Each structure stands twice: as C-alpha cells, then as structure tokens.
C-alpha cells in the first residue's frame, strides 16, 4: 500500500505534513524548492493532478522549481471508489504543460530506479504510481531508469506493443502468447511520457509497421495520442489505441476494470492479430 508513514517515522525532520490541502502542498513544495530543497510531494494522483494543477503549472513548471510530484494510487487503483478517485486524465493534462516531465514506472524495480534518478534530476516532474501490488516486469534493479528513453523489453518485427506504467506487464504477457502463435512483437516500456522518446516510436513504425498502445488512462490525450502524434506526422502506419473509453469508468476491482476495457493480454493478442490479418495463425 502506498504510504509515507515509514518515511515520516524514519526521517521526521525531512517530512512536512500539510493535511488535506492539495493546492497548498504544491505551493509549499515550490517554496521549499526555491530555497534549494528537493521536495517530493506525495498525494493521491486523482487529487494531485486535478485539484492542484494550476499550482503545478505556475509554481512548479513555469517557475522552474525542482518539485517531484508523486501521484500515488493512480489510474483505477481505487477501482470501486468511482470517477472522483480514478485518475485517468493525468497523462493528458500533465504532458500538456511545458516544463513538466511525466513518467509512469512499470514495477517496483522501475520505481526504485526512478526515485534514485529523480533525486539528482533537476526539474519539475509528475510521476504516477499505483496502489496495489503488481507483477514485476524486471527481475532486478539492473535496468537503469533513463528519463526520455524507452526500454525495448522484447524485440520483434511484426508489430510493436507499447505500454506505460502497469500496462507494461500486460503487453509483455500479450507478446508472449502472440509469440506462441508465431507473431513476433516488439515491446516497449514507455515509462517516460515527457521528455518523449520520439525516435523509439519512429523506429517502431518504420521497422514493424504496426503499433498497438495500451494505457490505464482515458483514450484521449494519453500514451496512444502521444504515439499517434509522431506516427501520423512522420511515418503513418496502422495503429490501435487500447485504454479506458471516454466515459466515467466502470467500477469494481482494478483487474475487473482492466478486463472490462480490454487491458488484457488476450484482448491485445486478438486486436494485434486482427490488425495483421492473422486471426487464423496458430503455431
């Protein structure tokens, strides 16, 4: 479970409690950063990315303060609690703000590496992490987190599957079952949405000819849109954007919501095969 209690107990002098005040927490963090500190702001992503977005725009991005905004319990982590608690617009909002970096680590190893990188990385950042335990993508902390550099987890030439955050594990599983059916997919962990790895997208379009994006986010303005902006302007190829439909998301457990919107290895397999016209292919 996402909580700062252990940190607060271990480092009481480095912990500032602000209460239920999302605008204030970002302003205070900007003030701390303006005085040379490196504040990490922790708040549920649904509130941090909406309630305090003007403070993020003006006090962090525009004022160029070194504030690390960590949106916890992101996406549909609070599955049963409804739209007020889902953060499914945060990628779209955050990536539209000049001067704000945006990243979604894929698993605990990515998170650890990202936090280490962030501590030495000058600039305002919005990071979305989840709440519940997730299966890992990596086996260790060995793969460094390089801002703005997509990680190719699997190489392949038939199509490219791109995930971000918790969907990376799912596209990896989809690639495995597709490989059993003879479809070789490239898998990208697009952990950074800004700065954006345009070259990785371009290479995927050029070399594989088909792109499927999968995100725990509304289908407007998120990962798929960011990929499409590159594809349509520089190398048009067929694309599919899998994500949450433009509606108040259905409620239930996060895995039920993922299933409902096709954020599953099986659906990604079906969508990929249908795109490639290889529905009948079975190894």
């Amino acid at each position, binding site marked *: 479970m996402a909580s700062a209690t252990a940190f607060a107990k271990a480092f009481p002098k480095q912990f*500032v409690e602000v209460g239920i005040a999302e*605008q204030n927490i970002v302003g205070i963090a900007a003030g701390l950063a*303006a005085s040379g500190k490196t504040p990490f702001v922790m708040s549920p992503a649904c509130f941090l990315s909406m309630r305090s977005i003007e403070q993020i725009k003006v006090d962090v991005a525009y004022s160029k303060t070194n504030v690390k905004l960590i949106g916890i319990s992101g996406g549909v982590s609070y599955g049963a609690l409804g739209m007020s608690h889902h953060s499914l617009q945060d990628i779209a909002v955050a990536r539209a703000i000049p001067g704000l970096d945006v990243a979604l680590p894929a698993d605990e190893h990515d998170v650890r590496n990202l936090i280490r990188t962030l501590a030495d990385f000058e600039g305002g950042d919005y990071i979305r992490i989840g709440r519940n335990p997730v299966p890992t993508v990596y086996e260790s902390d060995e793969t460094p987190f390089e801002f703005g550099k997509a990680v190719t987890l699997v190489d392949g030439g038939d199509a490219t599957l791109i995930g971000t955050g918790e969907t990376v594990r799912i596209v990896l599983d989809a690639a495995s079952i597709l490989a059993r059916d003879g479809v070789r997919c490239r898998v990208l962990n697009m952990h950074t949405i800004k700065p954006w790895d345009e070259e990785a997208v371009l290479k995927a379009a050029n070399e594989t000819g088909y792109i499927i994006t999968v995100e725990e986010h509304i289908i407007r303005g998120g990962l798929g849109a960011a990929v499409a902006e590159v594809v349509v302007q520089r190398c048009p190829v067929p694309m599919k954007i899998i994500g949450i439909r433009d509606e108040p998301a259905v409620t239930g457990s996060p895995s039920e919501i993922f299933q409902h919107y096709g954020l599953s290895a099986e659906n990604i397999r079906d969508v990929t095969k249908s795109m490639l016209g290889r529905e009948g292919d079975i190894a």
Partner: protein
Amino acid sequence: MVDAVPPKGDFLRRKASQIRMDLLQMIYHAKAGHTGSSLSDTDILTALYYGGVLRVQANNPKWPLRDRFIRSKGHAVEAFYCILADLGFFPKCELETYSQYGSRLIGHPNNKVPGVDMNTGALGHGLSVGVGIALSAKLDANAFRVFVLMGDGEQAEGSVWEAAMAAAHYRLDNLIGIIDWNGLQISGRTDEVMRTDPLDGKWRSFGWHVELAMGTTSMK
C-alpha cells in the same frame, strides 16, 4: 497604528511619487497594464524596498540570505518593475519594453527578471510558496524573512486560507503577509463582490498576529 510610509524626511513620499510617475509612463507607453492596482500598493512597495525593511542586494539578486518578496497579487506588476529598475536590478531603459513582443517584462512577475523570486499571476498561490520558503529558512536556521503581498479580492481564494492555516501550524514567525486592503477589485467593491469582513478577525482566528496600518493592513 503603523504608517505604511513612515516619515523619513520626505524621502519615501517623494520616492513613491516618482515610482507612480514611472509606472504611469510605462503603462502609457505599453498601452496596457493594471493601473489602479499598481498605484494602490506603491506605498507598500516603497516602504518595503526603500524604508529599510527588505534586505536585498541589487547587484547580487540571488544572494542566498536575502529576504524574499512574493508578489501574490501578481497582476499589479508595474510598480514592482519600476522599483527594481530604480534600484538597479536591471537597466531602467528596459522598462520601455514592458508588455512588448518577446520582452522579459511580461504582464505578471516572472523569475527571469532579476529581483523576482517566483512567477505569480494566478491568485491565491503566493502565501503557500511563502510558507515553503519560510519553512526552509527554519529548517536551515537561516534568519531571512519572507514577505507576501496579497490583494483583498484575493482573500476569496480558498488556497490563501490553506496557507494561512499551515503558517500558524508551523509557527512561521519569519513569514509576513501583507494585504493591500483597498476595497476594490476588477468587478466592483470587494465587500459587495464577496464579503471579507471582519478581515483582521479572520486572520487572528487563523492564528496570525495582525496589525492594521494606515490605508493598508499588514500581518505577521
């Protein structure tokens, strides 16, 4: 009662008049600006910058131990720019570029300009930033102080009160909030738009030490 412009001969009054002339010229030249609001707080700024209150260095604007000034009522930038130029933070001739294409002297304070600590312009932000800076000073045992200038119309922003609460919670006696209580905002008389009275009572109830000054209210 504290006079907003304490008598120091006639120096401060003459300085405030000069700044008013400068800002009117700047606004006339640019054909844009927040005239009323800037004229309204010129005395406060003059007292801060020329009355021996703010410890800042024009030739060393990033001096780490300087007092910080956050202009939370960011729309009224003109008097601020005129004073910074007058003190030598940047050349006075640059005032002619105010509001022009590509100028760093844009219509709201911005920290590309020497002497400006934070970008403001969206109301209700400055006091939270001030709380963060004041907290940082306490953590590092630095003696500098943080001054935040707000408008009275700005008091309708809920985030002001989030910050007011936090400042008292953390006992930030190095944070001074100043309200330019001029009774007016863009859409009319402040108390008709949204009643703030008793404004001093509200701040006292949030744990602040409040002092009323001539024509203005300064709080710390």
